[in-house]
């Protein structure tokens, strides 16, 4: 089994230095000046240790130097190196080049944060990837819970994959105290399958909710004549698929009477499409902090939201549970709109299943 490894050596630098991220050489220099150390190398080594313990015969394939080789050796591997010449210090472009250089592996591990995940996404990897969480910001779904878990998931991979969202914050806005997550796309990751043979014979809910189940519920409740705005995200895209159309992952679509009437629309087009109709907006939770509306879907602007009669949020119960009791966040850029959206919103969690969940203006909730 061949496991690829890429380390973003500067990931995590900004965290210890209180810089809320490590994107950009300026920030990295500042962090180093503050005495910060990057965590990515040691986290990647821990992942390598775990995967070799489970599969001593696994081959770690990586690039020379700090972007992989060093961590692989620190983790006890004799890595197979591919030809690659990174810049110094490494840049996003290096990450992309490394992904392309490591195309011939079973699973590609990368150590970093959301910024690194975006670079991996941009390189369009050919096979499944999995993040070793090592960044300051780890809100994307493509990361394992820890280094050991990432290493094990890689060697236990047996062909089942799933799509995980890549989300990142605008770091500049973040430092100014404004958080706005944005969905950048999805990566193919190994589907972890917990198999509990002897689990209690005690009852289970007959059907654990699936994205398809959520989509079916949304479609089942659609009323004739209503214009449905579908926000970005893989769950909302599944609604389009349930209607038999493709829809967009990152854009905003509009459907009416089961038919798409607008794909990847702008705010202007959106306002035209909803004019004179009853309007419902269907959005998903973007990232790990509970944002349902951020600048990532600014097409659904305050002006559009003023026309929306009904807001529905889509999320699995696991995603809601991961919030640990924290509310969902509205961040439209307009405090008055955010305030108007506050209260309890219907979150569809499965077929004929929903959760009433609190949503508050982002400005009221400190995220960080």
């Amino acid at each position, binding site marked *: 089994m061949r496991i690829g490894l890429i380390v973003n050596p500067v990931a995590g630098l900004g965290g210890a230095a209180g810089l809320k991220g490590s994107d950009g050489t300026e920030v990295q220099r500042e962090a180093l000046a503050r005495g910060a150390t990057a965590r990515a190398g040691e986290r990647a080594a821990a992942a390598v240790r775990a995967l070799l313990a489970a599969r001593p015969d696994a081959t770690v394939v990586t690039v020379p130097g700090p972007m992989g080789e060093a961590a692989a050796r620190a983790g006890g591997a004799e890595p197979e190196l591919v030809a690659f010449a990174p810049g110094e210090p490494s840049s996003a472009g290096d990450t992309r080049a490394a992904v392309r250089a490591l195309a011939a592996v079973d699973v590609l591990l990368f150590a970093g944060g959301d910024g690194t995940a975006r670079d991996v996404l941009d390189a369009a990897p050919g096979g499944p990837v999995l993040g070793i969480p090592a960044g300051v910001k780890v809100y994307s779904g493509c990361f394992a819970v820890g280094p050991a878990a990432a290493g094990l998931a890689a060697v236990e991979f047996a062909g089942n994959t799933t799509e995980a969202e890549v989300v990142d914050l605008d770091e500049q806005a973040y430092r100014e105290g404004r958080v706005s997550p944005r969905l950048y796309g999805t990566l193919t990751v190994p589907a972890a399958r917990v198999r509990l043979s*002897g689990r209690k*014979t005690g009852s289970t809910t007959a059907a654990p909710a699936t994205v398809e189940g959520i989509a079916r519920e949304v479609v089942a409740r659609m009323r004739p004549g209503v214009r449905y705005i579908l926000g970005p995200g893989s769950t909302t895209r599944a609604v389009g698929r349930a209607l038999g159309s493709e829809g967009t992952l990152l854009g905003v679509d509009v459907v009416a009477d089961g038919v798409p009437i607008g794909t990847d629309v702008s705010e202007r087009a959106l306002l035209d499409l909803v004019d004179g109709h009853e309007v419902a907006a269907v959005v998903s939770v973007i990232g790990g902090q509970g944002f349902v509306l951020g600048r990532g879907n600014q097409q659904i602007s305050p002006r559009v939201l003023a026309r929306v009669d009904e807001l529905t949020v889509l999320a699995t119960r696991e995603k809601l549970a991961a919030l640990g009791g924290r509310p969902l966040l509205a961040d439209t850029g307009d405090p008055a709109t955010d305030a108007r959206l506050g209260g309890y919103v219907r979150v569809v969690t499965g077929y004929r299943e929903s959760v009433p969940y609190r949503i508050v203006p982002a400005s009221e909730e400190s995220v960080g």
Partner: protein
Amino acid sequence: MTHPYIPNAEPAVRAEMLAAIGVESVEDFYADIPAALRLNRPLDLPAPITSEHELVRHMGALLGRNTDTTEVLSFLGGGCYPHHVPAVCDEVNTRGEFLTAYAGEPYEDHGRFQAIFEYVSMMAELLEMDVVNVPTYDGFQASGTALRMAARYTGRSTVLVTAAIGADKLSKLHDFLAPDIEIAMIPVTETGEAAAFTVDDSVAAVYLEYPNAYGVVETRMAEIAELAHAQGALLVVSADPIALGVLAPPATLGADIVCGDIQSLGMHQSYGGGHAGYIATRDEPRLVAEFPSRLFGIAPTAVPGEYGFGDVFYDRTSFALREEGKEWVGTAASLWGITAGVYLALMGPEGMRELGETVLARTRYAMDELGAVPGVRVLHPEGVHFREFAVEVADADALLTALRAHGIFAGVRLDAGTLLVCVTERHSKDDIDTLVRAVREVQG
């Protein structure tokens, strides 16, 4: 006295544990229960019987007010049957390890998994079907679930159900299939079998019983299966496995889902407490995906020659086409499955055949003899009967009461003029003759 069931009620231990936790009293743990919700008085219950001997006496006095079927001559069936229970069945199902186990992994509960796997495997041989579930509650539930499976599988919502079905079971089906599945009845002819009926493309399943509520064996099953299949409907058959040593397995006659109760296979009557249900299908993934219940399968281990077990098709939900009407999985009747396995292993192919032949012959003998009594009319005399038959009399209640005085429970009352008589391998020719004599006497 420290109660024998509560070791840590002993005050010194209790104090030691509280000290270790660092709390004053047990009351601290209950701080979340508001005063307004407290029951501030002792429960109003009978005084406890703390010695085992006195408890045995108390229970003995209650049980003494029952007269059981070993003390009288009972011809009661109608869904709960007096078959002989081999001693080994009771020996195995009272083993403390089986009796008190629950939900371990296939390692520490390997024996539970293997015993249930063997049970479903022996049922599979009897039924000639490849997939049989870990037992569900009872035959009522098995029928309800099988019909829901058929509805999900076909995407249709009407089921045609034979009218030769027990009233209680039909009541359960009406409740369990509400609100989304419609039941239409198939009438019964003079022979006791299903009348001619039509099937259209709204029908999810045709449902028959084998033998049916009158003890009659449907002989047109293969024909009915073709009728259902021609319209894309499934044939669902509830069959008592005790009859399958002699009767053709429904699957060989075209049944798609076979279900039923296994109480006959080694369970005591226990005032209706010995029931467990089975559901069986062919090995078709789409059909298997519709089982709400667990399926145990065989799996290799790290050691050559070792049998391991586990749940088959663990994540069936992701294969399911429809989420409507999915059911829960829960604690149902596993121990009766293990027991039925013991029963089938003891009986073997020949035992099942012999038992079937004995029951067929005695049923017919009882029908002939009772039918010859003036004032008694055997229903569906031309039909093939297994174990049960209905008789019409002038006054069922009067007859039952009169025979009760003779130490005979003559049958289950179906209505004011109809009785259902049950004959198993436990009823000798003499027993049947005794019944017939008594009926003659009280009718005369």
